[in-house]
């Protein structure tokens, strides 16, 4: 199975799976990271969230307010929690290739 191998680009992440360089991101790699961090096979809803987070980051150089993700994608907070059991930041932000958020938040 594909997720049993560690592709070269995953090695470009830090100890917690956050990408070191955002330009290394591609969809295959996002899927690999999803397997690695127990999110599993990415569904359309996963991609909806990931793509929104990524495009927001490209505009504002920071991830979107968490509440805005649900509002924009039309998903409830429960649905988002179910999609990313490890949390929005560790789930969606990480899979979208955003750098690890520093600081307390």
């Amino acid at each position, binding site marked *: 199975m594909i997720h049993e191998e560690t592709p070269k680009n995953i090695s470009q992440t830090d*100890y*917690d799976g956050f990408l070191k360089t955002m330009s290394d991101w591609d969809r295959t790699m996002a899927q690999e990271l999803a397997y690695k961090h127990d999110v599993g096979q990415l569904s359309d809803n996963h991609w909806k969230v990931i793509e929104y987070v990524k495009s927001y980051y490209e505009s*504002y*150089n*920071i*991830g979107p*307010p*968490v*509440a*805005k*993700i*649900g*509002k924009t994608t039309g998903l*409830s*907070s*429960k649905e*988002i*929690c179910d999609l990313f059991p490890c*949390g*929005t*930041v560790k789930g969606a932000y990480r899979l979208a290739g955003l750098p*690890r*958020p*520093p*600081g*307390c*938040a």
Partner: protein
Amino acid sequence: MSDTNVKEKVVNAIKAIKNGPRAGRLYMETCAKCGTCASVCPIYHGKSEKRYNPAERTDLIRRIYRKYCTITGRLFGKWAGAEDFNPEDIEEWRSIFYECTGCRRCATYCPFGIDHSVMTRKGRAILDMLGKTPDTMQKVVDISLETGNTDGANDVAFKAAIEFLEEEMEEEHGIPIKIPVDVEGADYFYVPPSGDVLVNPEATMGLAKVFHILGMADKWTMSSKCFDGANYGLFTGNDGDMKKDNELYVQEAKDLKCKTMLMGECGHAYRIMKMMMEKTGWWGELPFKVENCMEWTADRIKEGHFEFDKSKNPQPVTYHDPCNFGRSCGITEDPRVILQAACADFREMYPNRGENWCCGGGGGLSAMDDIIEFRMEVSGVKKLEQVRDTGAKYIATACSNCKRQLTQLMEHHDEEIDVGGVHDMLSRSILINGKAADRKEYV
């Protein structure tokens, strides 16, 4: 840097304690090794190993102090508890000084009043001087000094987030509720904690509602340059970084010509602003005062300005006293006034206030996911027990560090307990035109 240079620098930094504040000398020269500090330390409670004993940690510095600064140490060496510095120990120091949350619980109970957090900060300052601050911490300092906030966000992102919060409030209450930005001459300049606008939006909304109800929507402002009071120089022990970070906010308060800098729900940010802006602090006399938003809102509640629909917050709610508020700044009653007004079932956690146990993520440790195992299985263990005993389903706390640690702690130990702010609960139940918010679910 050669080993000789490293040794010289470290020894000089420790020798400087002798001519520094009297408290520092007291900590070096007076310790009965009675074990009280260990018995009240959240880290030592989590794992009773010698390296986690506060007195042993301070001894890393004390041994060298004795060697160079006391006659008995010079004459009798190890027999008098003195030992020379070994540059090879630096890597171990790097771990050990970041295994203390600086919560100051030891100082509360120590019969001599020894505050081991001061020596932890001294140890970290020495590491910082050698360029040995852990990367995760240094990154936060660098980003904050570069951008004015620890998220690395710019003014455009901030304004977009504020606009979103205004939309949210309009949907909740059916009327526009403003969050003013960059208004010169506003009485109150609100400085939120790290991430509160971008990640945890409800506290800012709560405060906006308070100003709105009081008819003071034009009396306050936020700043698109300074929207994160966090200051990690406190945690790395680098006074220069701490001052530089602070300076930007002081200047902005002056430029905005505010009368009050209203600090958000962030313990260390408030502590730094409050302490360093004393007349004897860094900046001399300033044209504004510093107040915490919880003090401000609690006073307005006590004056009887607001009504609440407590059924909006039916779940059992407890309050975790952030160490920097409860132990270091004496802000203990105001958050309780707000929570008791806004929630149907408020429960105390015991012990609390100035004797509360640290969440396990203080001293900046919360930002260090590279030591998450330690935070979840050692430093956070006591807090987990305390929270479980309350039966609460929501932990309110007034610190982004605590929130992050507690959220991770609950998830790690499979507890379905939400974590959030104090004004968050107010935002959910305060009445505007006789009606509470038609609330959104936040992830």
